[in-house]
């Protein structure tokens, strides 16, 4: 027996008030592309659905100086068509090109993708490599959580039951890219994904990088050891990368020898796949394109 109530929150204030009062007896609904499935399957029941889709103040992409802000209710379709993100966060812009399908992108929001914290959420690796800061609001005000501390596990984030995600902020990183591996060009859940933000010198030697990996384990995560291993490595050399990043990233992300089967792709295959995706993402980020693969753009 389905038992729901509905509240239409038109402003952030209205939303945080409801959240303060109801906590985990309510669920925020933005685009609905995930929420409606939870309702349909009976996983959510006996609670209040809070529509936040009309909260204008949480939508939009801004560039101020070299800082980019993306509102939590910004739709993936707006991210896909954003010139600001194409230039300043191509990893996120690129992720949007392959996120679900164009129709779903008119509904899906970046805040929803992060809030649901699916293992294969397509915006997560990019936000990780961008080292984004998540602004979370509640009745008492707001607080900031670095993206690297935001994702706690499948379906769990640092956002509490009385809180909501307001926006994501990060520095402009034009040398960033996301490589997704999925079964199809469209409407494909990621089987694995790697996002890299990087700086190389004019010979292609890595100065620093940040790597966000999707579907490497129970949650998308930073590959810290691989990031360290990349420093000083010649990005043009397959051999150099195999001897450094490849070895370490497999330990980084899935310490078990045989990680579990997940999303139709075996742990073993992912262990082989993720280093390669990371290499390609790093090259695309640093050089503008990857020598071996030209991932189509929409």
């Amino acid at each position: 027996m389905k038992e729901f109530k509905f509240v239409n929150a038109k402003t952030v204030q209205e939303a945080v008030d409801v959240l303060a009062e109801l906590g985990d007896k309510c669920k925020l609904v933005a685009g609905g592309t995930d929420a409606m499935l939870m309702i349909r399957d009976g996983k959510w029941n006996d609670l209040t659905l809070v529509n936040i889709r009309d909260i204008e103040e949480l939508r939009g992409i801004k560039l101020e100086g070299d800082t980019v802000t993306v509102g939590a209710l910004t739709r993936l379709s707006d991210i896909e068509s954003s010139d600001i993100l194409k230039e300043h966060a191509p990893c996120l812009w690129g992720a949007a090109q392959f996120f679900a399908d164009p129709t779903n992108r008119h509904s899906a929001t970046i805040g929803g993708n992060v809030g649901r914290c699916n293992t294969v959420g397509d915006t997560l690796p990019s936000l990780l490599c961008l080292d984004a800061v998540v602004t979370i609001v509640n009745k008492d005000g707001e607080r900031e959580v670095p993206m690297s501390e935001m994702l706690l596990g499948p379906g769990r984030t640092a956002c509490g039951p009385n809180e909501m995600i307001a926006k994501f902020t990060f520095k402009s990183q034009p040398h960033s890219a996301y490589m997704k591996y999925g079964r199809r060009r469209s409407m494909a859940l990621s089987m694995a994904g790697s996002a890299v933000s990087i700086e190389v010198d004019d010979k292609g030697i890595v100065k620093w990088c940040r790597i966000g990996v999707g579907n490497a384990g129970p949650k998308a995560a930073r590959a810290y050891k691989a990031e360290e291993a990349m420093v000083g490595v010649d990005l043009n050399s397959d051999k150099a990368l195999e001897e450094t990043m490849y070895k370490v990233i497999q330990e980084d992300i899935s310490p078990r020898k045989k990680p579990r089967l997940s999303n139709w792709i075996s742990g073993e295959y992912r262990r082989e796949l993720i280093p390669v995706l990371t290499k390609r993402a790093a090259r695309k980020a640093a050089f503008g394109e990857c020598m071996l693969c030209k991932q189509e753009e929409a």
Partner: protein
Amino acid sequence: MSAEKIKVNLKVNGEDVTYTINPEDTLLKALRANYNYDVKCGCEIGECGTCTVLLDGDAVKSCVTLAAACEGHEVWTDKGLGENDKLAARLQDAFVECGSVQCGFCIPGFIVAGVGYLKNIGNPDRKMIRNYVSGNLCRCTGYQKIIDAIEKVALEMERGEI
């Protein structure tokens, strides 16, 4: 104990309507319960696209849209577009001309997505068309003729014939 129904006021196919719904109802359910049978129920999980409608001008999948959240918003369906929008009517004819229709079940979703493409992008570029309607599935036709029809209208738009 039964759940309390609520009312939602929105515009559907140009008309102001008030639907009485359950708080958790999808837009698909609300539309069909109110005689908009041209909006089809396919997978109900946001994949097949046969439930596609325009919400404030953008193609969305009504099976994963909360009906209550559409308060104050505007919805257009395949039939409504065909009756009120010249471009949509032309596209519907093009589907017939190009032999794009077999069993017909996916067609309402494709028409709406096609209209969305023509109004928001409009290039007679098969690759772009294919990408835009990639959220719509067809088990009969193999898609060729559907893309032909959308391309045909896009070309007519480019030539200023529409």
